[in-house]
């Protein structure tokens, strides 16, 4: 085991995948010589050469569009979009092309590629460096969507994503890049200073796509979440004194519904927590599935805690970010029902 930040774990996953499979190619803005603005690809160009890890023009459409062509040819492109907020120019290539190639050609052409992008807030990035666009991907048939919450999962999930025969959207919560987060965004100095590293397995291993993880067992409430909010959830639960079961989804699509249903059938109460805007967000999907599957076990209405339905503001980040206080309120509310 090695102790790593999420950035180091992602870098390690790239190196292991490229070492193992000569078809894995890495490209994106600044990813080559410099190793990416977050340094997730640092050193790859030096090790694997300029034809396997290279800088691209600032054209998200170009990055994803050429990756579709490369994947269809037989390579395994793993591309970086500098911030998820900048994937919109590439959205047509992701949605209309990458996601549908297998379907529309009846399997004649496929698109095994990974599109990595940093998501979420917590670094004062304002509206253009803070978005959580996962619902825009889970809404699209043909894509898989992954969000890790710790270095060990990040590496294993990325290796599984690269090995996957279909296009995978890999969303990296940038608030967790340098270490876990104690969930208290309104106490910036404390949360930033806590740079503990995670234990990460060496070499090749996969964390399978589509498998959630029960992080904390509990009998009273099921709290379903992913990414940065996993840490907010754990902080809130600790402070709430309620026996909450916390589940980290890890993959949003395909969804591990079985684990969720088993948990809610046991607890009878359920809260979904995400950082993205509430309305039409991914939480709505889970809410709908759980109420259909667990209706007779439910003892309280399902609750969602999410980002407000506004763009992500710069000065009021701590008011926007769903923090432990809001999660604790939600726990209290479902316990009263």
């Amino acid at each position: 085991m090695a102790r790593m930040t999420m950035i180091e774990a992602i870098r390690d996953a790239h190196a292991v995948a490229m070492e193992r499979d000569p078809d894995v190619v890495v490209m994106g803005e600044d990813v080559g010589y410099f190793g990416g603005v977050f340094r997730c690809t640092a050193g790859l160009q030096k090790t694997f050469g300029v034809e396997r890890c290279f800088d691209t023009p600032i054209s998200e459409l170009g990055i994803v569009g050429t990756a579709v062509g490369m994947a269809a040819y037989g390579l395994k492109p793993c591309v970086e979009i500098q911030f998820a907020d900048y994937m919109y120019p590439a959205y047509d290539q992701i949605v209309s092309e990458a996601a549908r190639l297998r379907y529309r050609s009846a399997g004649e052409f496929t698109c095994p590629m990974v599109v990595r992008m940093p998501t979420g807030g917590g670094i004062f990035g304002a509206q253009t460096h803070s978005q959580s666009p996962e619902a825009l991907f889970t809404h699209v048939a043909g894509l898989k969507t992954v969000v890790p919450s710790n270095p060990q999962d990040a590496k294993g999930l990325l290796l599984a994503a690269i090995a996957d025969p279909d296009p995978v959207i890999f969303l990296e919560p940038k608030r967790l890049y340098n270490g876990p987060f104690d969930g208290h965004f309104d106490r910036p100095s404390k949360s930033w200073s806590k740079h503990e590293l995670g234990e990460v397995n060496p070499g090749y291993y996969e964390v399978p796509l589509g498998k959630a993880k029960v992080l904390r067992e509990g009998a009273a409430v099921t709290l379903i979440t992913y990414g940065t909010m996993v840490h907010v959830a754990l902080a809130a639960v600790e402070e709430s004194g309620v026996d909450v079961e916390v589940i980290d989804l890890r993959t949003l699509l395909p969804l591990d519904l079985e684990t969720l249903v088993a948990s809610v059938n046991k607890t009878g109460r359920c809260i979904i927590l995400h950082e993205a805007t509430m309305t039409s967000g991914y939480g709505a999907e889970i809410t709908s599935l759980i109420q259909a599957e667990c209706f007779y076990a439910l003892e309280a209405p399902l609750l969602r805690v999410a980002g407000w339905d506004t763009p992500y503001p710069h000065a009021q980040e701590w008011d926007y970010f769903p923090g432990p206080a809001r999660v604790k309120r939600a726990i209290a509310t479902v316990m009263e029902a």
Partner: protein
Amino acid sequence: MSEERAPRLHVPEPELRPGDDPDFSHVEIPRAGAVRRPDPGENPEEMRDLAFSIIRVLNRNGEAVGPWAGSLSDQEMLEGLRHMMTLRAYDARMMTAQRQGKTSFYMQHLGEEAISCSFQKALRKGDMNFPTYRQAGLLIASGYPLVKMMCQVYSNEGDPVRGRQLPVFYSSREHGFFSISGNLATQFVQAVGWAMAAAIKGEHKLSAAWIGDGSTAESDFHGALVFASTYKPPVILNIVNNQWAISTFQGIARGGAGTFAARGHGFGLPALRVDGNDYLAVHAAAQWAVERARRDLGPTLIEYVTYRAAGHSTSDDPAAYRPKEEGNAWPLGDPILRLKTHLIGKGLWSEERHVQAEAEVMDMVIAAQKEAEAIGTLHSGKRPSPRDMFEDVYAEMPPHLVRQRHEVGY
């Protein structure tokens, strides 16, 4: 047919990396005054050469020479010097403020001051810039209050955009400064639309689009050229080639051939390439393009050749990807020094007055900073209310946002 060969991926590389000695001998710099100045009404097909040279006015001795000289009065040049000095002092103070944790982020203009400061002077009220993040000189040269700019950087209660935007993402309709997007290139094509609207309404206004060399790779840039060449509205398409896009050298966006200005040729647009460190050349080129727009002769594309002397932003360390001393080796010099030398040569300025002016400008900037900080900084003092977070999402706040606002306690 010659023998076939397996293709190899060609990835452009800059000539120099950290540890190498800076060397710009391959950059062809024509003599000041050497480039001709056609009539703005001339057929674009006949001025293709202007996209491959560099229009320069100030020569090595600081004299203004050639057909592009003389677009500014003495008074205007003195004012221009002051604007550039103000922008530099402003940058220095805001950089320090960021390092002190008073704001989250800052982006400076070091070495590029002439472009925005000088361009603005060719415009008039009613014209609209669609800037990116390195054109604060447009505001300074149009007399926008420094205190307001700083309040924006601090996201405090005095911030005109209510703490919503990243620092340096200013907005002022009054001063012809369209609200900045963090998404590169999106506004290049919007500027064309703004000019199309002026044309549809038959109003004497023009727009100026701004983009960096790296961002010209975005499809929005190409969309803008298509629409500009199709409808020929009064728009000036500005490309600031400062050699670097974060760690990526300009050759990645440009490819192996041509210049950024030459991108205009496929669209039949007249394209100029200008010394971006020469206040006088920038103004002359801008004025030429403005004249085309005002005479309804259509769009002009201008590439400013300059160098980003500082880091990309406060999150960047350029020493990781380019030679440390490269900025000093940049052959087009420092825009402030060059204009200063010119003004001294004309007897309008002196070393002593410059030193004195530097102190004055810095005092003025510090006074503005004190005023802004008295209101607040990102983490202290008066901030926009969380209530503000819910305003302006729509013209009228829908019920679900009212509910969410109440949940926050407002």
